[in-house]
Each structure stands twice: as C-alpha cells, then as structure tokens.
C-alpha cells in the first residue's frame, strides 16, 4: 500500500508546536542562555562558557542537596509503595464501602501543596498543634523547627499522608481488573494467601505499580512546596532539597548564572532517571512475552 503524502498535515501540528515553543522551549533556552554567561547587573553580560557547570559540579552544597533528595526519594518509595499495596489489597471490592474508601483516599490528593505544608506546620507546633502538643504532653521532646531528625520525620510523614493515596488508587485499579475466575482457580489449586498475591495480584498489578513508582519518584525528587512551607529547608540546611537550594540560589542570592546551570543539571538528572525507569518498564513487559 502506498502512503499518501500530504504536507498540509504539518499545519495541523503547528499550533501545538507554537504553544510548546512558548511554554517550554523558549524559557528553557533563556535558562541555557543565562547558564553560559555572567552578569554584574545593568543587563551587561559576559561569556562564561562552562564555568558555572564546573562550579556546580564541584560544589559540596550541590552534592549534599542531591544526597538529601536521593535519600528522601528512597525512603518515600520504601514506605509508600508497600503501604499503598497493603491498603489497596484491604479495600472492599464491592458494596457501599467502595465509594467511601475511594473518596477518603482521593481527599489528600485534592489539597493544594502549600496548604498541605501549612496543615502539617500547624499540626506539628508544640503550642497549638495536635501532634506537637500531644507529643510534648507525652514527654517527647519533639520539635521539627530545631531538630533535623524531627524535621525529616515530619516531612516524610507529610509526604506519606499526601501521596500514598496515589499508589493505593493505581494499585486498586489494577486489582479490580482481575477476573473472579483467577481467585476461584487459585482456591481450587489450594493456593495460600501469599501465593495468590505473588502469582496473581502482583503480576496483574505490575504495570500500574511501575507507573506509580515512576510518578512517586519524579514527584519526590522534585519536591519543593511542602518542605519549603514546613521547614523552609531548615534547621540549617538539613531539609534543603535541590529545588529549595535552587530557589535560594536564584532568588535569594540572585546568582542567575549558577542557578541556570543548576537548573539544567537538575532537569537532565530527572530526564535521565525517568528515561531509565521508562526503559526498564517497557523492557520488563516485553521480556516476558
């Protein structure tokens, strides 16, 4: 069969191209522009080449923030994925409990990020917060403002509260798509609860689960609003993630060149990581056919 060539079709794509150019490509190019120049203000720029990139890659501050990001994402995934699966497995499959559970699960996802930060900031306060005050009454010396461990625990709790629902909902969608016959066959084969999970539920969930992991990884790696509202990156720099550091650099210190270089490095890291996840995901699927 001959393919009909019709170059007018390109005009159909043009509006999207223009939109993407203005919303993504041109701003990104501006950042590239800043990253290779230096300025002392007054719109005077000097060519700096790769200096900013070298500086960023050699700075302890960048690698410390990067390390915190990786540790944070690892902890988040290690808690939210198993917890999400566990909750999804225990949610009702039919009856009035289904809509109730789904709405309860979806609620945290509907709250704006900065509101989540504010909720937990108040929640954790020793004087008026339910959590902070209760812990203080119980004799726990809890203070997320000046104790790094407490700050981390609070941020992790907040993220688990905010985002486990996403994993739950995706897993639940995977679970309800399993036909009853599978469970009946498993009963007939005398399979244990664990075997049902391992050989029926997990294989049927693996696709949605990988999407959940990918989304949670990207989101947690880019986390900004909630810790910014809760701790502002402190105490000290202990909760300063890459995104918070970037904002400090760009707006706090007005170090545009360095911030631009950091943005590009940050962007490339997320791009590469997502690509790796995506490749692993697709290969995982095809390998088994």
């Amino acid at each position: 069969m001959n393919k009909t060539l019709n170059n007018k079709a390109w005009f159909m794509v043009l509006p999207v191209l223009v939109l993407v150019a203005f919303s993504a490509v041109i701003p990104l190019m501006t950042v590239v522009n800043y990253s290779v120049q230096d300025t002392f203000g007054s719109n005077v720029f000097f060519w700096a080449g790769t200096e900013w990139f070298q500086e960023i890659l050699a700075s302890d501050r960048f690698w410390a923030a990067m390390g915190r990001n990786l540790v944070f994402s690892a902890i988040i995934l290690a808690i939210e994925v198993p917890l999400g699966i566990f909750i999804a497995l225990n949610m009702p499959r039919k009856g009035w409990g289904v809509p109730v559970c789904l709405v309860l699960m979806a609620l945290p996802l509907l709250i704006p990020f900065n509101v989540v930060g504010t909720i937990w900031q108040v929640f954790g306060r020793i004087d008026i917060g339910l959590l902070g005050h209760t812990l203080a009454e119980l004799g726990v010396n809890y203070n997320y403002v000046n104790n790094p461990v407490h700050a981390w625990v609070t941020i992790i709790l907040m993220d688990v509260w905010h985002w486990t629902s996403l994993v739950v909902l995706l897993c639940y969608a995977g679970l309800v798509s399993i036909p009853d016959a599978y469970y009946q066959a498993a009963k007939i084969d005398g399979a244990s609860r664990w075997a049902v999970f391992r050989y029926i539920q997990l294989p049927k969930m693996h696709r949605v689960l990988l999407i959940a992991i990918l989304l949670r990884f990207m989101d947690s790696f880019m986390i900004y609003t909630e810790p910014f509202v809760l701790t502002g990156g402190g105490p000290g720099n202990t909760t300063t993630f890459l995104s918070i550091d970037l904002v400090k650099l760009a707006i706090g210190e007005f170090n545009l060149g360095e911030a631009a270089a950091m943005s590009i490095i940050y962007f490339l890291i997320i791009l590469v990581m997502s690509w790796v996840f995506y490749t692993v995901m697709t290969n995982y699927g095809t390998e088994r056919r």
Partner: protein
Amino acid sequence: MARIDLDNIRHAYMANPAGDEDYALKKVHHTFVDGGAYALLGPSGCGKTTLLNIISGLLRPSEGQILFDTRDVTGLPTEARNIAQVFQFPVVYDTMTVYDNLAFPLRNRGVPEGVVDKRVREIIAMIGLEERARRKAQGLTADEKQKISLGRGLARADVNAILFDEPLTVIDPHMKWELRTQLKELHRRFGYTMVYVTHDQTEALTFADNVVVMYEGEIVQIGTPEELFERPSHTFVGYFIGSPGMNLLPASVDGATVRIGSQSLTLPGRAGALGSDRIELGIRPEFVQLGREGMPISITKVEDIGRKKIVRAELEGETIAAVIDEDTEVPAEPHVVFDPAHLNLYANSWRVDLEGAA
C-alpha cells in the same frame, strides 16, 4: 473419582427469597454417576453455572446437601473438595512457566518434588505441550492456555471430578474439535467424572453420554442425546435441541385422536384425561414428510442448508418447518404427513405419556 449426589439443592442469590422466582436454582435432585461424562445444557441465565459452582464449592447452596461418595461436603470449602474446574476464560499464572503452572496445585499441597516432577511430565505429555514446558505461560495461544487450565486440574491424581464451565468459548473453531476430541479421549482412558456446562447443543451432544437440560433454574430433562431428540419431555427441550427446533402446534385431544384446527390425526396411544390444560402437539421437522397427500400447507420460504432443505410453511394458520433432502421436489400443491411414531403430546409444556404406546 467420585459419585456426586445433589440432594434437593436450592439456591437463591438474595438473602430472603420469597417465592420460587427468587431462586436461581429451583430444586435440583440428581446423581452424577462415578466416571460419567455429563453435559449441563441450557440458555444463559438458566442456573447451570450456579449449579457448577455449588458442586465445586465456590457457592454454598441455600438449601440441600451435596455428597461426594456418600460423604457430605456441603460445608467444605473448594480447596478441601479436591475437584478441578476449567473456566470460560483460560486462567493461567502468567509469570510461571507451563511446567510450574502444572506443578502449582501439587506444590501447594506439599507433594514431594520428585513426585511432582514425575506427575507434571505425564500431564504435559497428556495435553501435548512438551515443547512449551519451559516457556512462560504468558503469550501462549488461547487453546494452549486452556490446555494448561485443564492440565492443572488433572495434575492431582485423586481429583474427585472435573468441571468445565463453557471451556471452548474463546477457542478458535478448528481447535474446538481437537480439544473436544482430546477431552473425550481423556475421559475414555482415565474415567474421570466430568461435568461440562455449555449452551451449545453440538458441544453437549457430542461430549456427553448424558445431557442434563436446564431451563429457568430447573432440570427439565436428563437423557442421552437420542432421548432428547426423540422424546423431549418439555417443550423447551424440543425447541432448544435440534435445528430448527421442534414444531409445536396448539391442539385439542380426545382419546387417541388429536385435532389441529380442522385436521385430525391419530396418536400412537391414548392420552389420559387432560382437563383444561394447554395442549400442544410436537413433531420434529425431520419427521414431517412433504408430499401430495395429507394436510394442505402453504409454503412461505425454502432455505437450502447444503445437503438438506428447510421448508417453512403454514398449516392451519400455524407456522411449521420441515427438513427434506436437497433433491426432493417441492410439489405444486404441497401437503404434509406427520410420522405417527414421532408425535409427542404436551400438556402445559410437559410431555404426556400415552397409554398403549410403544
């Protein structure tokens, strides 16, 4: 292998069934003989899958008992009943190899690995999947997957019965024959008690020695394919079995004489007092002879189905069908004669036994 007794089973899906119409299964009292091949035949929603799930223990009947070889298993869960079931859509464990799929029910029951290996090799040979043994079950064709489902059931040597729930629905037509032949072969060689649910009469009639016809939650007839064809005990059986189904004509009866409109016929025997029951005369299209003598009909349509022709016609205002050989001429003034030996009389849809008939 076991004999399966269904002792006055009733089942309703709702909590407090009020009348008969609330029951998905109205009253089933039947014995599946050890080593028999049975087909449960009926239209969708007639309760055949419900009955199958009650036997396998996936459902607990609202009333009645199930006995396997005189042992009451009504309260036993599926895994304790030791039965095998093959479902409509093939169920395989995707991430396991074909070999592991077949070994799964044995390993779950703690059978030593040496015994498992020996048994699985036997089964793989039996279902003809030797070359696929080490492949992942995912990506096999539907009929191969269905063979695995069957094989998992056969793996346990002491299985009480094998239940099939419309197992050939998703199989390609040319594979259906092959699989059905294999099933019959397995039945002959190993003598499993098999219960086969289907809504396809060809499948039921070719697979089973005994066909159980179900209609609206009741068993309407149990018999060999021949009995179902020649002496349907309910008008539904007459209509459901055969293609086209049995002709049913409203009639009135007096002794051995039956009248359809202005025509009268002689029955092979006398009917008892039927009172005000709704009377119908049934005759298979195969036993309607077309010729120049008998009752006049007007032909509406002739369908050529290859070696046979189906003649659709009107007799005394009622539509009837006749099956004739392809080379039989349709006369200009057509008449029909009903073969008296194959007349069946129905009162309120149930067959009436005729006194003095052979």
